[in-house]
């Protein structure tokens, strides 16, 4: 997973010669930029890096990365990426998927790749809509979303990707925003550093079919009040003056917003972020919107042995007891000789 190229690569070295075919202004551009920069910063090599995607606007991503890439079929990227990683664990494998690709048709593969803890970076571009097929509601679309397939408003409740991932057993769950370049880059680096499946939800604006749907917490002028930027070991504070915080209501096991310095509240009352606590992660993932700020950054990071590590260890053990070669496997039992 280290660069073998003689020169450290720059962000632009990760760009291909293919014309980028997203709508002008699409949030995907910003994410592409961030990823190329992150790879350069990490000093990885092109030939040991693989991007695997499904189908959707977001899933065109691999075409624009001068690495190995597989633009596969709708929803199946986690399964394909698993095959890649288990075949060659030296590779740095990234999955790029959308809210439809990764959570609608591909929900089951997402579930199981997280459960198995295959060492992949999974970037879910959540624009709460099906972009490529022209704007139908997706599983993350808010109830009431009007779309060509739901002209009178969608009626199903939206899935919360981070809650789903935690329920699936994910050991790394994070969130960022397409245009928040620094935060996004930092979050991607954290995902890369995590051994095992890293699930990163990136709020991505689809300006054609779902413009400004994240405006509530992405608008720059109100960001301080609407974003809760998580840092391990730091109190859960937000607001322009960083004086608003989250406090645990012990009896009801819920969080409430308090203001430090008001009603006798001190910073000690504010919950401290513990990225290894799944219960806290779930509370933060599920903070009701827009009453609470949107929790961004690393919600959960609690590594465990990865699937390929387990596999390698096991095969090493098996090799001591198993057949040494094909011949002896074949001749192991039920044999006789005809002279």
């Amino acid at each position, binding site marked *: 997973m280290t660069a073998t190229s003689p020169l450290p690569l720059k962000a632009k070295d990760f760009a291909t010669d293919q014309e980028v075919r997203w709508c002008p202004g699409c949030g995907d551009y910003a994410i592409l930029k961030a990823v190329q920069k992150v790879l350069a910063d990490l000093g990885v090599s092109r030939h040991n890096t693989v991007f695997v995607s499904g189908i959707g606007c977001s899933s065109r991503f691999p075409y624009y990365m001068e690495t190995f890439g597989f633009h596969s079929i709708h929803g199946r990227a986690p399964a394909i990426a698993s095959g890649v990683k288990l075949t060659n664990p030296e590779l740095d494998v990234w999955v790029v998927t959308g809210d439809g690709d990764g959570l609608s048709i591909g929900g089951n593969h997402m579930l199981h790749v997280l459960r198995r803890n295959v060492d992949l970076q999974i970037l879910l571009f959540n624009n709460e809509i099906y972009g490529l097929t022209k704007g139908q509601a997706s599983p993350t679309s808010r109830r009431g979303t009007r779309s060509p397939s739901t002209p009178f408003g969608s009626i199903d409740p939206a899935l919360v990707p981070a809650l789903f991932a935690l329920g699936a057993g994910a050991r790394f769950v994070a969130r960022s925003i397409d245009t928040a370049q620094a935060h996004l880059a930092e979050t991607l680096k954290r995902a890369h550093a995590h051994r095992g499946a890293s699930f990163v939800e990136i709020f991505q604006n689809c300006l054609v079919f779902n413009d400004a749907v994240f405006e509530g917490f992405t608008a720059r002028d109100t960001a301080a009040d609407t974003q809760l930027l998580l840092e391990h070991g730091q109190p859960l504070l937000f607001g322009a003056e960083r004086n608003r915080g989250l406090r645990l209501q012990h009896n009801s096991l819920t969080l409430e917003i308090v203001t430090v310095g008001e009603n006798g509240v001190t910073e000690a009352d504010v919950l401290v972020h513990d990225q290894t606590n799944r219960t806290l992660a779930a509370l933060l993932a599920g903070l009701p919107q827009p009453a609470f700020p949107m929790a961004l950054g690393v919600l959960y990071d609690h590594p465990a042995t990865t699937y390929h590590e387990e596999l390698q260890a096991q095969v090493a053990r098996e090799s001591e007891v198993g057949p040494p070669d094909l011949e002896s496997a074949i001749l192991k039992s039920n044999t006789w000789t*005809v002279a």
Partner: protein
Amino acid sequence: MSPPAVAGSKVRRDARDAIVIRFSGDSGDGMQLTGTQFTMEAALSGSDLSTFPDYPAEIRAPAGTTFGVSSFQIHFGSTDIMTPGDELDVLVAMNPAALTVNLQDVRVGGLVVVDTSGFTPRNLAKAGFESNPLESDLLNPYQVMPLDIATLTAAAVADFGLSSKEALRSRNMWALGLMLWMYGRGKQATVDWLQKKFAKAPAIAQANIAALNAGHAYGETAELPEHLSAYSVTRADLPPGVYRTVNGADALAFGLIAGARSVGIKQLFFGSYPITPASTLLHALANLRPLGVVTFQAEDEIAAICSAIGASFAGALGVTSSSGPGLALKTEAMGLAVSTELPLVIVNSQRAGPSTGMPTKAEQSDLFQAMYGRNGEAPVIVLAAATPADCFEVAMEAVRLAVGHMTPVILLSDGYLASAAEPWLVPDLSGLPSGSVQYAQPTEGFHPFKRDPKSLARVWPTPGTPGVEHRIGGLEKSYDTGNISYDPDNHAKMTKARAEKVARVADDIPLQEVDVGLDRGRLLLVGWGSTYGPIHRAVLQSREDEGLDVSFIHLRYLNPFPKNLADLLRGFDRILVPEQNTGQLTAILRSTYLVDAQVLAKVTGKPFMVSEIRSAIRATLEGGQPS
């Protein structure tokens, strides 16, 4: 060859060329084990053989019911044994249900061994008997040997302190002992096997061995009626070498590994999801992981094939395996493998359909699905295995073609092949080719869809290799650059290239041989897959016994067909295609060659009988000229 002497036996033995025995009882009665052990002993005594395990879909069906009957048939002897046998010489029926289910298959004059202990009114009722058949005329056409095996077994194992339930479990070994005696087979291998299997429960091992010995001794010492005396079965005239019995699943597992080795691929990646009767291949490979196999039990069939595709992309040989319903789920991803032109082996152990159908019964009804079951124009190579041992060679061939031509290969097996066993002359693996696969290296003008001008196979660049970074996917790509292209003429060109690439595989496979008979004549039988045995025998017998002008070819290569197939087909007045479906190969032959091939269809979930095919041959030849 002269009949082998049975050590220490005082019994005069009549000689027989071949014998068909079916062990049958409740699912819990251990009939599969019994049959497998008999198979082993028969093989060790030098018989050729063929087996047919047949068990219920239920894990443990309620005791005594007809749907809970589990059977194991073995045909062994000196001649070329190619089928499990049409008719039974011996039926061993452990309970009334087994008797009622199987009696119709016993030849007139055949032997029926019955454990009378199970013939209680309750069991008789469950089997649908109104009165005890042992006391009726029902069995008159047969020779009957009613034995209270339960009591005999209980006596034999009395010393080992087992509960009576445990003791009863050895009944199958008693019956096995008797049959081994009757056909002059050894029993040492079984003794060894029991000792190993029950190493942690020596009392059980001892009891089973005692039961086995008791059954054997019973034959030796009891005053059996003259006509039920022991037989000797002539040894088969097998070529010298090391043999083992092998079923299709094991042979496939070995063949896939041997195939990867012989093309020089280090890792086989097997992505699969359990399904009857395909799971046995997963199980076999899971035990062979130290040999460079990764087995990955995916969450479903789609993930299974996709993981294999990812593995092939990364330079392993991706293999996936399932049965019909699972294959159906894989069809979209197969199209991706076709479009990305990655090597991939897809094994389909066919079972009776449609839908869930009859999971434990074999059928050949997924040929259409293999050939045509994808969206768009998506040709793949299709191969079929003929016998359990043939699975080894076909698996190797599938790997060779997939890698050599950069394309998915569908290998058709079926539930019968997967579990049936036959003797296998273990090949000399050192004699196998040892190729070394060519992964693409950076070259001037490299692109991922650069083709070999002869085969049209594309290059295989793999992640980890500097300088061959590239992107592939399911969208149409430019013939000249590999980049996405929606150009109309390019799409036509690529469609043609994909078809042509598969068509040119015909240059890389052997010409079709005539299996039995001549290359022209009045009637040709064309077969594929597991029907090989019965068709082969039927044609041989029709020629030899009846002097009929009939020949037989058996297709291993279903897409593309061997180049000389057209000529062969045109050499005959009539073409008859026995298939365990309603005419799928028949339709393909008709449209490809415009010949009036006719199907001999069998869709009962049971293999063809030799006699059925012989009748059909006769009927076809008597049926006048082809229209």
